[in-house]
C-alpha cells in the first residue's frame, strides 16, 4: 500500500495504444492482490450492498482498493479528496427504480469504469452525477458530494456552475450528440462562453487550440464545418474537445467509442488516455469489457440498477468473483471461444462434413477465383473432413464439390465511387465465410450482390452451380428460397403490423395447416415459445427479434444464409445467445453462411475463413485463425492491433477460486 499515486495510475503508459495492456501478473500486481480477498467478499451481491451502507466501515464506505491506493497517494485522503462521491444512490422514474443503491466515487486522476448491458442503469448513474438524470427523475442518496460540495442540496444554478467546468460529458455518436445545425467551432466556443473561460476575443483562437489538442487536422477549416461534414472519428474528437474546453477535473464518457470503427475506437481511447495522463479523472461508461479493460483503474459491473461487482480492473476482468461478470466475460466471442457455446462454454455440435469433400484447389473452370478456392479447400479440411481429394486429381466436380455460392471478380460502383472492386469468394456447403471491414468498406454492398438484390457492374455470382447474377428477377425467383438474409436490425426489415408468426410464415410456400405447424416448429428451433407467434415486432426484445429473423430466414431451408451484422445491435449476453443459436442451427442444417461483421472477435469465433475488406477491395483472405494470428496485409495488422483485448494473464494463487471457475466454464 505504499505505491505512489503515479506508479499506480495507468496500467498502460499513456503514450502507448490503450489496448491489450495485459498486466503481467506477478510484476506489478502484488501490491493489488493483497486487498483482493476483501474485494471478493464485497462483491457478493446483497452482502456487499449491505456492508457498504453500514457507517464507519471505512472512508466512503469501502471503495475498491484501487481507490484506496489513489487516496493513499495524496495527503489527507477521505471524502474531501474524491471529485464525486455518492452513496446508496437511488434513481427512479415514475416509481420505477432504475438505479438501486449504487455507491461510487472518483478520485482525482483516477479512471473508473461502469460496465453493464442496456438497462443496467449505468448511463443514468453517470448523468445523475451531473444532475442530468432527466425530467421526472427521483434522485435519492444517503450522501452525495460533487466537487467537495453537498450535491443533495443543489438547485439548477449550482448544477449549471459545475457542468462543463467541473465535469465534461462525452456521449456516444457525435453526429447526434453535437448540434447538427451548428458549426463544431460554435459548439466548442459555447462552453468557453458559458463559463467565461477566456475573454470573448480569444475564444476563436482557443477553439482552434482545443481542436488541435485533440488531434483534429486543419482546425481552421474544421471549426467552420458541421458534424455531418466530419468523419466519425473527427466528430468524436470534437465532442471530446467541447467536453474538455473548460478544463474540467473529471470527464464523464458515456459509451464514447460505441458505433465507431475499431481503428477509430483505438484512436479515441488513446485520446482519452492522454487526457488522463494530463491529470483528468475519467468516468467511463461502457458495455464493452475489453474497452474498459484497456483504460480503467477500477471497474464497477452494474446489472439491473445495482453494482454486482467492483474492484481493480485487472482483478475484475481476469478473476471475476460474481457469476454475472463471469458470464459477461465468457460471452465475449473471441478466438478462444471457437467451437464452444458462448452462453455456457459447452462444446458446440460439430458441423457435418460436406457431402463429398471439395475437390482439390478449384476446378480448372474456376481458376479465376483464386485464391479463394485454395483457402476454401483449407477451410474444408479444417473442420475435420478427411480430404482424400487433396493431391489427387479430382476427375470432375461432383455434386458436393460445387460451391454453393461463388462471386467472381465482382465490381460495383455508385456514381463515380467504386464500392466493391474485384472481389472474389467461394462458399462451400456448411461453411462460414466471415467478411470483416470498417464502415464504408463495401461489406453490405457485397451482401446485396451475393443476394442478387444488386447487379454487379463487373464479374458474376453463381448459386448452387448455376448463374445467379445477370438474370431477370423472374428467372431468379424459383431459387430465391435457397439464399436468405439476416439483417442487423430486424425491426427495420419487418413490417411492424405483421405478427411474428406471419413474418415467419411469409417466405414459406406451404398449405395453411402445414405452414402453421412449420412456424411453430421454427419458433421452437430458435428457442421461442409458441405464443410469440402472436406478438408484433415492437413487443419483442432485440434478441427475440433477431431470433424471429433467423427463424424466418431458415424457413425455406436455404443453402446459404447471408448475415449482415446480425448481432451488432445486441447486448453481449444476447449476442452470445444468438451466435450460439446460429452455430447450432448451422450444424444441424449444414447451411453455408456469409457472415458480415465489423467485430473481429465475432468473426474469429464463428467463421472458418475470412475476407478482410478495405475500400471495396479484399486485402487479405484465408483461414480465420491464420489471418488473425499472422496478418500479412498492413491493414489487417492495423485492424487486429486496434481490437481492445481483455487482460490475458491469469492470476495465480490468491484469486484461484474465481479463476478456476472461469477456466472451467471456458473449456
Amino acid at each position, binding site marked *: 500500500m505504499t505505491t505512489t499515486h503515479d506508479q499506480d495510475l495507468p496500467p498502460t503508459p499513456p503514450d502507448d495504444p490503450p489496448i491489450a495492456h495485459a498486466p503481467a501478473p506477478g510484476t506489478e500486481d502484488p501490491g493489488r492482490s493483497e486487498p483482493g480477498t476483501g474485494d471478493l467478499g464485497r462483491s457478493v451481491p446483497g452482502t456487499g450492498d449491505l456492508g457498504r451502507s453500514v457507517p464507519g466501515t471505512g472512508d466512503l464506505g469501502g471503495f475498491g482498493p484501487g481507490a484506496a491506493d489513489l487516496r493513499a497517494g495524496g495527503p489527507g485522503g477521505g471524502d474531501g479528496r474524491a471529485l464525486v462521491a455518492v452513496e446508496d444512490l437511488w434513481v427512479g422514474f415514475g416509481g420505477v427504480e432504475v438505479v438501486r443503491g449504487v455507491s461510487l466515487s472518483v478520485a482525482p486522476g483516477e479512471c473508473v469504469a461502469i460496465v453493464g448491458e442496456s438497462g443496467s442503469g449505468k448511463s443514468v448513474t453517470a*448523468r445523475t452525477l*451531473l444532475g*442530468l438524470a432527466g*425530467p421526472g427523475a427521483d434522485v435519492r442518496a444517503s450522501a452525495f458530494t460533487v466537487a467537495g460540495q453537498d450535491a443533495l442540496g443543489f438547485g*439548477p444554478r449550482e448544477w*449549471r*456552475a*459545475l*457542468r*462543463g*467546468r467541473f*465535469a*465534461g*460529458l462525452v*456521449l*456516444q*455518436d457525435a453526429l*447526434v*450528440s*453535437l*448540434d*447538427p*445545425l*451548428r458549426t463544431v467551432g460554435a*459548439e466548442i466556443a*459555447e*462552453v468557453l462562453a*458559458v*463559463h467565461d473561460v477566456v475573454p470573448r476575443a480569444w475564444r476563436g483562437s482557443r477553439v482552434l487550440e482545443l481542436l488541435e489538442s485533440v488531434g483534429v487536422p486543419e482546425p481552421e477549416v474544421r471549426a467552420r464545418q*458541421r458534424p*455531418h*461534414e466530419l468523419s466519425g472519428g473527427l466528430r468524436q474528437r470534437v*465532442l471530446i474537445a*467541447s*467536453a474538455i474546453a473548460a478544463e474540467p477535473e473529471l470527464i*464523464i464518457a458515456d459509451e464514447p467509442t460505441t458505433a465507431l470503427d475499431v481503428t477509430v475506437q483505438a484512436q479515441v481511447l488513446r485520446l482519452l488516455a492522454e487526457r488522463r495522463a494530463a491529470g483528468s479523472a475519467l468516468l467511463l461508461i461502457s458495455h464493452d469489457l475489453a474497452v474498459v479493460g484497456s483504460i480503467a483503474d477500477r471497474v464497477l459491473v452494474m446489472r439491473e440498477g445495482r453494482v454486482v461487482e467492483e474492484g481493480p480492473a485487472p482483478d475484475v476482468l481476469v478473476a471475476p468473483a460474481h457469476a454475472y461478470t463471469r458470464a459477461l466475460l465468457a460471452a465475449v466471442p473471441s478466438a478462444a471461444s471457437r467451437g464452444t457455446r458462448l452462453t455456457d462454454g459447452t462444446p458446440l455440435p460439430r458441423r457435418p462434413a460436406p457431402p463429398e469433400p471439395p475437390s482439390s484447389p478449384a476446378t480448372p473452370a474456376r481458376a479465376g477465383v483464386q485464391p479463394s478456392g485454395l483457402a476454401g479447400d483449407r477451410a474444408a479440411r479444417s473442420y475435420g473432413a478427411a480430404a482424400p481429394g487433396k493431391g489427387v486429381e479430382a476427375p470432375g466436380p461432383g455434386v458436393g464439390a460445387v460451391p454453393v455460392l461463388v462471386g467472381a471478380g465482382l465490381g460495383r460502383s455508385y456514381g463515380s465511387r467504386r464500392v466493391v472492386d474485384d472481389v472474389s469468394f467461394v462458399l462451400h456447403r456448411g461453411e462460414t465465410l466471415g467478411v470483416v471491414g470498417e464502415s464504408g468498406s463495401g461489406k453490405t454492398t457485397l451482401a446485396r450482390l451475393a443476394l442478387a438484390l444488386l447487379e454487379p457492374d463487373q464479374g458474376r455470382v453463381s448459386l448452387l452451380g448455376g448463374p445467379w447474377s445477370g438474370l431477370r428477377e423472374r428467372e431468379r425467383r424459383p431459387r430465391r428460397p435457397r439464399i436468405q438474409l439476416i439483417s442487423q436490425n430486424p425491426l427495420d426489415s419487418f413490417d411492424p403490423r405483421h405478427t411474428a408468426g406471419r413474418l415467419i410464415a411469409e417466405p414459406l410456400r406451404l398449405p395453411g395447416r402445414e405452414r402453421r405447424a412449420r412456424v411453430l416448429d421454427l419458433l421452437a428451433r430458435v428457442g421461442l415459445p409458441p405464443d410469440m407467434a402472436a406478438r408484433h415486432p415492437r413487443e419483442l426484445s432485440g434478441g427475440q427479434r433477431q431470433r424471429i429473423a433467423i427463424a424466418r430466414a431458415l424457413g425455406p431451408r436455404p443453402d446459404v444464409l447471408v448475415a449482415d451484422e446480425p448481432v451488432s445491435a445486441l447486448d453481449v449476453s444476447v449476442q452470445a445467445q444468438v451466435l450460439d443459436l446460429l452455430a447450432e442451427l448451422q450444424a444441424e442444417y449444414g447451411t453455408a453462411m456469409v457472415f458480415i461483421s465489423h467485430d473481429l472477435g465475432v468473426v474469429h469465433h464463428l467463421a472458418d475463413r475470412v475476407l478482410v475488406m478495405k475500400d471495396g477491395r479484399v486485402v487479405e483472405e484465408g483461414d480465420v485463425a491464420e489471418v488473425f494470428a499472422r496478418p500479412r496485409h498492413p491493414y489487417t495488422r492495423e485492424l487486429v492491433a486496434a481490437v481492445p483485448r481483455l487482460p490475458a494473464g491469469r492470476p495465480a494463487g490468491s484469486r484461484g477460486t474465481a479463476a478456476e471457475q472461469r477456466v472451467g466454464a471456458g473449456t
Partner: protein
Amino acid sequence: MIRRLGAGLAVLWAAATASYLALLLAPGDTVDVLVGEGPDTPQIRAAIVREWGLDRPGIVQYLAYLWRLLHGDLGRSYQSQRGVGEILATQVGPTVQLTLAAAAAGVTLAGLIAVVTAGRGRAARAAVSAAELVAVSVPPFLIGIVLLAVFSFTLGWFPVSGAAGPAALVLPALTLGLPIAGVLGQVLRGGLERALEQPFALTARARGLTERALVTRHALRHALIPAVTLAGWFTGSLLGGAVITEVLFGRPGLGRVAVDAVTGRDMPVVMAVVLLSACVYVVISTLLDLAYRAIDPQTRS
C-alpha cells in the same frame, strides 16, 4: 435557379388558366355584366360584344388574354371600366399592411407560447393546447366577431371598422393571426420538445447552459424546420383570410376587391387577383427554400 423560375412561370400559367376556365363555366353572361345598370338594347349589346371581342371563339379569347398578360396588361375591369392594374395598385397597400401585421402577430405569439411552454408542466401545456385548439378550429370570422364584441362594442378600445390608423389594424390582424398562432405554436412546441430530447441537448446541458439558452440557441432552430414547412400553408391562409377579415371589418383592400369582382363576374379583376396570389405564393416558396438552406445546412449537400 432556372428550373425554379420555369416552375414559377408554370404555376402562374396554371393559375391563370384554371381561373379562366372556372369563370367561363360559372353561370351568367359577360355581356350582362358589361351592360350593368346602363340602357340595354340589342344595338348596345352588339357594340359591347364587338368592343370586348366576345364574338371570337373561346380559345382565341384565351390566347389573346395570355398574350396581353405577357405584355403586363391586366386588362380593364368590366364593372368600373378602370384599368385592373390601377385598381390593384390602390388596394394592395391596406392588404399588405393587414397580412404582414397578422403574420407578425401569429409568429410572435406562436414563438412566445412555444418557448414559454416547451417542456413545462402538464397543466400549463394543457391550457395552452386548449387555447391553440380553439384558435385553430374556430372560423376566423367568428374570432373577429368575438373580438369586435369584446374590444370594440364593450370596451371601446379599438374602432369597429375602417382602416384609419394603427389602432384600426389591431383587431383585424389578431383575427387573421390567431389561427396561425394556434397551428404554428403547436408545431413549434412539438419541434422544441423533440429537439430538447435529442442527445445534443444533453451535451449542451452538460456544458452548463440554462434551459432558456438551450431553447434559444439550439432547439429553436430545429423547431423552425417543420414550422417553415408550414409557412407555405399560412401564406394561403393569410390571403384567403384577408378576404373575410376585410369584409368583416369594413377595410379596403384586395380581399374586398376580390369579393366584389367574383360576385359581379368581373373577370379581368378576378384573374388579376388570382395571378397576384399565385405570384406571392411562388415568391414565398422560393424564399422558404432559401430559408431551409440557411436553417439546415445538411440540405445543401
